[in-house]
């Protein structure tokens, strides 16, 4: 069933939330922020696998850039320590700059790729950097409840 939504506003206005999928963190490389790129079964009929995996991989590279321990982070740390961390009152940390880039990227992806397919990605920072929440919307005109229950039962049968 093809549900066409032309933009984000139309999605929010005319669609009802059917289900949510949560992409968990990938801890195989340590405690750094990384999300699993495994494609969830609930999204199989909604979006192409490669598009979704590209989004998650790009987010992972953003987070890796933010948490990179190298020359720039040492410089920032030492400078901040020398000023008793008062410099953070006027300066933005590198992590915060990358978070802004991530927010812009997610907004862009939602507008271009996800909203036209009836999906919405929530920025992980709003969920404590624990999960990427993907909301699945159904058009209010179509049989929203039956498709909602089928997607729920589909996930328990996994």
């Amino acid at each position: 069933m093809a549900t066409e939504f032309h933009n984000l506003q139309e999605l929010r206005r005319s669609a009802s939330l059917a289900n949510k999928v949560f992409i968990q963190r990938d801890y195989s490389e340590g405690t750094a922020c990384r999300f699993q790129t495994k494609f969830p079964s609930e999204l199989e009929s909604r979006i192409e696998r490669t598009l979704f995996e590209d989004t998650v991989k790009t987010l992972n590279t953003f987070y890796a850039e933010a948490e990179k321990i190298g020359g720039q982070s040492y410089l920032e740390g030492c400078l901040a320590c020398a000023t008793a961390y008062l410099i953070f009152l006027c300066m933005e940390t590198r992590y915060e700059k990358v978070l802004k880039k991530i927010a812009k990227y997610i907004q862009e992806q939602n507008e271009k790729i996800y909203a036209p397919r009836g999906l919405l990605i929530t920025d992980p920072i709003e969920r404590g950097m624990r999960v990427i929440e993907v909301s699945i919307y159904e058009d209010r005109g179509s049989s929203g409840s039956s498709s909602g229950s089928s997607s729920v039962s589909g996930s328990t049968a996994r």
Partner: protein
Amino acid sequence: MSAVMITRKVRKWERLPGKNTFCCDGRVMMARQKGVFYLTMFLIMGTCSLFFAFECPYLAVHLSPAIPVFAVLLFLFVMAMLLRTSFSDPGVLPRALPEEAAFIEMEIEAANGNVPAGQRPPPRIRNVQINNQIVKLKYCYTCKIFRPPRASHCSICDNCVDRFDHHCPWVGNCVGKRNYRYFYLFTLSLSLLTIYIFAFDIVHVVMRSVDKGFLNTLQETPGTVLEVLVCFFTLWSVVGLTGFHTYLISLNQTTNEDIKGSWSGKNRVQNPYSHKNIIKNCCEVLCGPAYPSVLDRRGLMPEDSSSALTSFAPSSTSIPAPQTTKTTAPLIPNEHTPDDAKPNIAASAEKTSSHKAKSPPPKEEQPPLPTVPPLASPETDAETSISKDKMY
């Protein structure tokens, strides 16, 4: 009870669960018990003001004016680090919203399969492999999440904290991922300050006694005795603590892991987070990136959630059953339930008949079966109940 719409803007910190206190409209975040923190402030400020009042004038004239100047800079650094440690978010993980908690419950149900009646379901543990080491992620029943590696639930603050080190009453806050380096710099600079004041007190007493005699010196500067006493006792504890944390940093371990013996080496278990290089470990902990807070304390609550809270309040009081047996809305994490009802929401069926018979009258019939997956509690888990039996 009529539902009154709150028209003023509510910030998110006002609705955060957990036992933290917030000041300055959400900018400052501390634990509830702050008494020992005030004592720390009093000791540091008191001792330093005595030093500036009694010793510094003499030392500035007879030795060098650089001595009080350096003492002032060190004192300001100590205070800055203390306040930064105490007032910042240690790395609290927000609790799972209802949909996320339900999703996790469904995943656990699917993984466990059908548990025969009468048997306890298996413990809620997820295994992940980090650097060729199996690390077990435990499920937090309060926050309804699988804790990330190195995270732990602080019972004093009632929050899961990332890279939890310990809860320090002296700074009045948890020490975790976001404020560990400030805590370490606080203990280090306080050690230096204590040694500095102690040393110059001795120097001052010796220099003055040569001129005027020991007893006259003590009479002229009575503060010296107090300072020496405070510094002497502080030295042993703070310098020892600094040494301990330097050791932990060089191994990239937390106090929590050290106490539990997680990486003590038995069963060939090694610390998977260590870079096996002291310099690299120190650099990661002290010069790593400044992590942002994931608790949006100063954000505004969305309009519909504030109205949902006000309309929910009357329905809870109109139900004749006591709150302890309420199972219809089990997963709302941000409602301020009274302390005695909070643990019972998770384990209603088991606990009400036995422990809480004193407050509400024991109910004859069971509460209606919940439509969401049955709530887990530590009592229904095999592993946690065995470990609890061992405790008693």
